[in-house]
């Protein structure tokens, strides 16, 4: 068991760090440190392309598909340096981290050839069409339907909480392709172009005033039959494969962002004297400990080699970070006091910590609520009996 990285890995770290610093201090200084997902989308698309030019857009992918075949440790290092440099959240997170690995694992060679290059080059931004108004925690209750019409699937229905749909070019959709099926049966996984008359996108304004989520309406939207990943009716399996990549490398980068947030809380506490208050010192220490344990938990998860297998550290990771960050938001507001409630009258967005306080209320909901996480941990991790299901 080992904590430190090898000399070669540290050399790779310096190489990434120096390139990222050049970019963030230079041409892309205007998007450095953007903490939300919606500011300056055009500049961030340009940034995606810049990453691709230097083969940094998807380093874990095979070389043949535009990656670097980077080892797990190199991916960890890049994710850490990316966040440390203050590079903005990846606009194409869904394409690079989720759909790409899914296509590499389950896509046909024709699908790989058609979709992977544009993701690697940063020219196709993807979003995820899973949740529906009636299918949230109970995701398998999906009602969006796709029916076959010649060489195409025709899609009717509605998705909701679709992050970044307003900037995306493509969406992967979980839809019911078999009439009369319920639950996980009869679902298929489709790749759909967003730029067509059958699709309407309506942003949803959130409690922080911003609109990162959307409703996506499908009214006769179409995609070619060859855009189905996996077999017809096997969409649930494809979607769970995809979600397993969510608990991957990117979590290490996410933690660097958390580090920046905790550092901002510490700076605030030092400024207004609360860093000398024993009660606040205890809470600050708890936050520090929680963040460090997240890092070592993530490293354990990666070293496990099962790449997102739902066991042990991987199974508990979502509730761990989401709960930690929500608590950090509360600590931030307690530290700031009334100053945390205000911003200059002409401010477009809330400052970092106020936004953290608001935004972190979503962390414990999206991607599986804390309640669902507890069910998963208890049922899959601890082997406790399943809750009896209703008949709906």
């Amino acid at each position, binding site marked *: *068991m*080992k*904590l*430190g*990285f*090898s000399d070669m*890995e540290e050399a790779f770290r310096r190489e990434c760090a120096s390139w990222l610093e050049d970019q963030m201090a230079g041409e892309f200084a205007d998007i450095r440190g953007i903490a939300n997902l919606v500011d300056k989308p055009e500049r961030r698309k340009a940034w995606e392309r810049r990453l691709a030019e230097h083969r940094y857009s998807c380093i874990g992918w095979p070389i043949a598909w535009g990656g670097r075949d980077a080892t797990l*440790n190199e991916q960890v290092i890049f994710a850490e340096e990316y966040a440390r440099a203050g590079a903005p959240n990846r606009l194409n997170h869904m394409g690079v981290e989720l759909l790409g690995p899914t296509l590499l694992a389950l896509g046909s060679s024709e699908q790989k050839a058609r979709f992977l290059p544009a993701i690697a080059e940063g020219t196709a931004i993807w979003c995820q069409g899973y949740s529906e108004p009636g299918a949230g925690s109970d995701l398998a209750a999906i009602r969006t339907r796709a029916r076959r019409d010649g060489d195409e699937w025709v899609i009717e229905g509605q998705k909701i909480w679709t992050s970044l749909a307003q900037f995306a070019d493509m969406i992967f959709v979980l839809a019911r392709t078999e009439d009369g099926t319920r639950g996980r049966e009869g679902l298929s996984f489709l790749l759909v172009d967003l730029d067509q008359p059958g699709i309407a996108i309506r942003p949803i304004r959130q409690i922080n005033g911003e609109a990162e989520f959307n409703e996506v309406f499908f009214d006769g939207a179409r995609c070619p039959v060859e855009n189905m990943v996996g077999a017809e009716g096997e969409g649930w399996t494809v979607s769970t494969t995809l979600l397993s990549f969510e608990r991957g490398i990117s979590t290490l980068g996410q933690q660097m962002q958390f580090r920046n947030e905790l550092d901002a809380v*510490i700076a605030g506490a*030092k400024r207004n004297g609360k*860093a000398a208050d*024993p009660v606040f*010192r*205890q809470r*600050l*220490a*708890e936050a*520090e*400990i*929680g963040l*460090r*344990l997240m890092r*070592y*938990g993530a*490293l*354990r998860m*990666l*070293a*496990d*080699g099962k790449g997102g297998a739902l066991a*042990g*550290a991987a199974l*508990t990771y979502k*509730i*761990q970070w989401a709960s930690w960050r929500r608590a950090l938001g509360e600590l931030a507001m307690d530290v700031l006091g009334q100053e945390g409630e205000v911003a200059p009258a002409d401010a477009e967005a809330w400052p970092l910590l106020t936004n953290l306080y608001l935004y972190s209320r979503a962390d414990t909901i999206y991607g599986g609520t804390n*309640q669902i*996480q*507890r*069910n998963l*941990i*208890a*049922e899959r*991790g*601890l*082997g*406790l*009996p*399943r*809750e*009896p299901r209703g008949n709906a």
Partner: protein
Amino acid sequence: MAFALDEQQEMIAETAAAFFAENATSERTRAAMASGIDRDLWRAYCRELGFGGLMVPEDLGGAGLGHVELAIVAEQAGRTLAAIPLLGHAMATAALLASDDRAAIDAHLPAMVAGDRIVAAGERGGEGLLVPHAAQCDLLLLLGEGGAHLIAARAATIEPMKSLDETRPLARVHASAGDPLPGGAAPCEAARAAGVLCLAAEALGGAQEALDRTVAFAQEREQFGRPVGSFQAYKHRLADRAVEIEQARSAVWWAACALDERHETRALALHAAKSFCADTYLRVAGDMIQLHGGIGFTWEHDAHLFFKRARAIANMLGDGPHHRERVARIMLDEAA
């Protein structure tokens, strides 16, 4: 970097788990509660298992292993509440090796490694000095401002106490400090590090076992016509404890690795591990009683043994607030 047990470490974990599961049974632990130590178990641990010299270099007759291996073994000992003097042993071994005092090493280490000399260790604090296993030991290791003192038990006044945790009873110690071990602050620091790690790992093991036993109970016990473990009130509480235990495991491995690699985060890691693991154990052991219902409150059930061990660990070598305050000093860049 691979933050996982390697093959040899996996083997040590399996060996230790099997040894304690077979030998440190509830019956034997309860039988040892009268005298405070299961001496047969300790001798077998030191000699048959050969772990008496776990961290002792090979040229001194030991196995030459590190803190990671200590943590692995302490976790398994804690899992079964084994009534053995592992804590004092680990602390004294670390102190002696750090002192590089050949006379003291030659005088004590071989007998310690063989399981023939029992060491109790404690830290001088505010009020009187309560030391686990002091009434059972041959040798006392006392840590304090003036350094680490190794004192023959017969040279001290030791008053056995009725103790909450009878699997590791406390005694009040009055001893005048002679010369400390040489090596400046090193013996004290090494002993405290080994002790804190040992306690954190024990807490991890105890918490894991308390959770496992409660989960097993929740699967079997039926009320309202279904296993109580199918109710979300049970599931969610047990899930929260499982999340904490995963974090506790990360904390122990981090601290153990950081010590072995002399990593810059080792002080932070030890404070984090002690406070987090002890708190986790307290909560899991408390929930073990609650979720077992009335049976969990009986003397016959083992739940109270975990509950009491958890409390004892929380108070030893600095409590939660103490260690978190140390974390605060480090993170706020204040001088220690």
